[in-house]
């Protein structure tokens, strides 16, 4: 028993996973089957959306859509992008919605990174009155996702005249503790000797920030950017409340509005090509920047 296990262990020791050690006595086939089924179930809704975006509204509305691509791909996507006018729905050109979503996601990501890197720098590298008071104040916001305080926040927004503005859409989502906590955590790992050396060389706090701290933070900034871009792109409740004119809508809100009451008489072909436009940017970001995304996700949440 022991010798057998020991021999197997020596074979497997170089591997990275842990449960591979279990696998030695079982075959891998059932594992592959389960994982492939999982992958197919995960991908099926998106595949079907793509198929839906290649047929005409009539075929889908009759419930006669095949599971293979149809002939109307180019027409549907062009229509959705430039006007989104179908036989039954009057949508809004998706190119405008995409532009709004892109602006929103970029502004939230960049804005949040800038304000949190600055505040974390102040908290980590300075000693000043009320330091812990401010830190605690920022930390508290970690507990309050925008959803729980929508009603009062909306009231504040309308008092400030920020309804239907890009500022109203983005600024309230920039303030949260995650970025500050992440950067503070990282800044605390920068050795004291760096600060001493900077002081001896006569570099002030701003010079130190710009020449040392920021370059060291590059990968953290990239990781946070990917996570925040997706967070911003996928917002739903907030844009739903803050935008009252259709030209300010984001793509995610826009496609749900196109469906209306969800009847069969919707131009599903346009809804589905709109949906593909809505999901493609964040999915591509996750797939292409997977390393940063995973790093950012694990760091901001843990």
């Amino acid at each position: 028993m022991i010798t057998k296990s020991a021999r197997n262990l020596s074979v497997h020791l170089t591997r990275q996973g842990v449960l591979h050690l279990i696998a030695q006595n079982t075959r891998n086939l059932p594992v592959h089957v389960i994982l492939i089924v999982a992958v197919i179930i995960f991908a099926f809704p998106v595949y079907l959306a793509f198929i839906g975006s290649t047929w005409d509204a009539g075929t889908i509305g009759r419930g006669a859509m095949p599971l293979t691509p149809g002939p109307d791909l180019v027409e549907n996507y062009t229509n959705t992008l430039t006007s989104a006018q179908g036989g039954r729905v009057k949508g809004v050109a998706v190119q405008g919605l995409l532009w709004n979503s892109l602006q929103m996601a970029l502004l939230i990501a960049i804005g949040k990174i800038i304000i949190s890197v600055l505040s974390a720098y102040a908290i980590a590298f300075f000693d000043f009155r009320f330091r812990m008071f401010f830190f605690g104040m920022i930390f508290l916001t970690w507990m309050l996702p925008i959803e729980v305080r929508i009603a009062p926040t909306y009231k504040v927004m309308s008092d400030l005249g920020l309804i239907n503005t890009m500022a109203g859409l983005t600024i309230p989502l920039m303030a949260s503790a995650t970025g500050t906590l992440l950067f503070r955590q990282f800044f605390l790992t920068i050795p004291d000797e760096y600060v001493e050396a900077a002081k001896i060389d006569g570099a002030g706090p701003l010079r130190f920030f710009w020449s040392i701290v920021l370059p060291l933070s590059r990968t953290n900034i990239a990781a946070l950017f990917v996570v925040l871009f997706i967070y911003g792109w996928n917002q739903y409740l907030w844009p739903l409340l803050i935008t009252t004119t259709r030209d300010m809508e984001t793509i995610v809100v826009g496609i749900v509005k196109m469906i209306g009451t969800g009847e069969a008489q919707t131009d599903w072909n346009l809804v589905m090509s709109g949906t593909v436009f809505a999901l493609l940017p964040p999915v591509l970001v996750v797939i292409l920047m997977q390393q940063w995304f995973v790093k950012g996700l694990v760091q901001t949440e843990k």
Partner: protein
Amino acid sequence: MRRRVVFNNRFLPYFLLAPQVAITIIFFFWPAGQAIYQSVLRQDPFGLRTKFVYLENFQAVLSDPLYIEAIQVTVIFSVSVTIFVMVVALLFAVMADRQIRGAQAYKTLLLWPYALAPAVAAVLWMFIFHPSIGVIGKALNNSGLPWDYHLNSVQAFVLVVIASSWKQIAHNFLFFLAGLQSVPIAVVEAALIDGASAWKLFRSILFPLISPTTFYLLTVNLVFAFFDTFGVIHALTRGGPGRSTTTLMYKAYMDGYVNLNLGESAAQSVILIIIVSVIVWAQFRYMEGKVHYT
């Protein structure tokens, strides 16, 4: 924790903090204060007079049968989503943790749904389960099983759970996988040398060792099910049929925006804030107690 060597500057740190603190005060503390203030006031129907009513709004909310119903829906919904997501994600993670051909590809192929917005997930699942045009919805009806989530509250509930869980499974999968891969290999070796079976190894060694991850995901999933699923419900069922998918979050939205009952809506916001605080507090307490694991 603080550094030994720091910069000394009279004004700079306040200047650096200013943007974040300003946004935090304007968009967090002011609204939260307003919510608490509004929650103890009542306006007459014309909005001309307000009076202080102590905790009457809370009393009204908590004794409202519709609110009690929303609490029940929320609890059943959150528990269903959380259990479903965690069981499936852990199964996938255990599978993908094995050293098999294409492990990295599987990881990517199981991770991407996390990028989808909950509302987009709802639209995709609606297109599959729509009773007359959806591939599966129509097939169910043709096979003699009447399927219409617009009319049947159980079916609506199940569909909302599926659409909500889909992207969250991808999220939990990533964390479980990371948790499993950080278990020290020596521990697993020792168990195997002692002759532990695969199941025994999982139950007695791996599962206890990833319990910090499990508990963390438990709280994350509860918060997700409470709040982030608003998009799914709004896009898919609008809280219906009847009130079968009206969660506390959806009800707060309806009462605050559609019915414009400010006092009770503010009281609902305060209750939601308390719920989140309790979950986050529980998480911190647990993390503190289990620090030696991580």
